[in-house]
């Protein structure tokens, strides 16, 4: 199937575990001036890349009239008034939006972890008829644009009365529709020595026990990647909630933020930026915690985005 050919096979083979970052070489001795120049260049690139975010952070802590007065990223002073004001600005409040987002994300993460891991184990370890065909179908669904199933899925969920609930955003995950993660987990499981789980079976463990007691613990790094990316993508998803949710009290963060933009006058940009920044906070936190793992996961499997 289409994705297998371009997959950087030599990468996945060379680093069997996505969690293991490439070995760090010892810094070679260099002329101090050249090293200094490199750091200067890299810092410049970082500031240029992160400038939009830094500008937003600065704009959330300065008085309203100062925001568009200059493009600087260093605030003249720090005034956090925009944060509580923005937090309470819209009727259900930003706390509700965050809670809703976390509820949806928790369901989605649980669903992807359970369903994708089960499917991946079958593809990586078990032999059954038509396996290659199903594997190809699975890879095909990774490349399929979601829009082609969007409308009938909506009609289906509408027919069973799920529109207006979180079920259309969560239940599909329990049915392993994010096939991308199946692929990621298969790649990872293939790197785990077969002898380990075969030994368990010889010792009399059934396949379910071999899966649960041997394979699952060894797959934790890939499970972490799956969980974190599922969280982040679900948290940032805009189209799904836009289509399926209509009650303000059910809104997750992206819809809450958008409502914010629509409802606000031109004079409360500080609050808008403050809440935008708050909305990015969970992603920041996950990024800081799992940075190495995430980056290694992308390097070996080519996560989209």
């Amino acid at each position, binding site marked *: 199937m289409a994705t297998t050919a371009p997959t*950087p096979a030599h990468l996945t083979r060379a680093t069997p575990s996505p969690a293991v970052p490439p070995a760090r070489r010892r*810094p070679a001795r260099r002329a101090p001036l050249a090293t200094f120049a490199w750091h200067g260049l890299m810092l410049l690139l970082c500031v240029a890349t992160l400038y939009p975010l830094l500008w937003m952070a600065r704009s959330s802590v300065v008085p309203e009239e100062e925001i568009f007065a200059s493009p600087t990223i260093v605030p003249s002073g720090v005034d956090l008034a925009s944060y509580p004001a923005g937090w309470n600005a819209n009727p259900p409040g930003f706390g509700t939006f965050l809670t809703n987002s976390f509820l949806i994300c928790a369901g989605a993460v649980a669903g992807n972890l359970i369903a994708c891991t089960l499917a991946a184990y079958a593809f990586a370890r078990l032999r059954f008829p038509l396996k290659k065909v199903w594997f190809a179908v699975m890879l095909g669904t990774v490349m399929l644009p979601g829009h082609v199933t969007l409308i009938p899925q909506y009609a289906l969920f509408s027919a069973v009365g799920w529109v207006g609930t979180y079920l259309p955003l969560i239940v599909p995950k329990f049915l392993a529709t994010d096939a991308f993660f199946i692929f990621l987990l298969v790649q990872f499981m293939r790197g785990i020595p077969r002898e380990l789980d075969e030994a368990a079976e010889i010792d009399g463990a059934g396949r379910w026990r071999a899966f649960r007691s041997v394979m699952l613990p060894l797959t934790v790094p890939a499970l972490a990647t799956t969980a974190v990316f599922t969280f982040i993508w679900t948290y940032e998803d805009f189209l799904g909630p836009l289509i399926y949710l209509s009650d303000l009290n059910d809104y997750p963060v*992206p819809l809450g933020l958008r409502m914010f933009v629509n409802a606000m006058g031109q004079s409360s940009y500080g609050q808008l930026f403050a809440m935008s920044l708050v909305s990015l906070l969970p992603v920041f936190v996950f990024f800081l915690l799992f940075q190495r793992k995430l980056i290694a996961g992308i390097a070996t499997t080519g996560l989209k985005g």
Partner: protein
Amino acid sequence: MSVPTAPAAAARATRPARRPRPPARARSEARAGYLFLLPWFVGLAALVIGPMAASAYLSFTSYDLFNDPVWVGFDNYRTMFTDDPRHLQSLRVTFTYVLASVPLRLAVALGLAVLMNRTLRGMSFYRAALYLPSLLGGSVAIAILWRQLFGGEGAINQILAFLGISGPNWIASPSTSLLTLIVLAVWQFGSPMVIFLAGLRQIPAELLEAARVDGAGTVRRFASVTLPLLTPLVFFNLVMQTIVAFQAFTPSFIISNGTGGPVDSTLFYTLYLYIKGFGEFEMGYASAMAWVLVAIIATFTAINFLGARRWVHYADES
């Protein structure tokens, strides 16, 4: 929901496998395989194959979700290409976006990966910092930020004014609005960059050293050694990023307030599909649009694969 029962059933089903009789073993293994795949099979049937068939059928109908679909044959497809200027405009916008943003994004990603492929204290920090925008990219907050940055009095114009250039209102002007979305896409160069970096680390140092001994300079070493060895990754990124770019939605929705404006200059294909389906309830028409998108993505992927034979170099081929 069938999910919670699947593991228990699998455990029960595999128990007879303890007896070491090969044919029975194979049969029980096959049963286990299908049981582990059960959630996926249900999802595939109910949420992928079923909806695909339904959407193929709906694309030949007029359907508003509330009344039964009415068969109209090829009318939707005909209208799209002959009688719907907005559809043609959305195609133009999307093609421009993909053809501009994907190569630029890959070029920036490759350039920075090459720049960062050296041992320097703190490199993991720089790598993380440059990757961060990609992780936040799809969020509403970033789209909102972009709208303000590129507004008439936004920070971008203030920087330009500092340099003595008077910038337009990027977002509000039809000639520049799409450009801001392309810049946003290029800004998120992190994922391909990380993949390039991983590839660069796999290049044997001896090869580059041998080229150096032969008198090849930095540029020559990059063009004759590094780049050819990296072509499988360039290809991989090209295919994946093209597929992703065709489906971009959130930034155009937020920046244009869901309209695709000004004057449809940011009317992405997926945004127009959303407007048709969920704004005007022309679900049949939107389904037809979805299939055209599938055809476009398949065509581009095929072109990429056919073209790849000429320039992608696999180490085990020669």
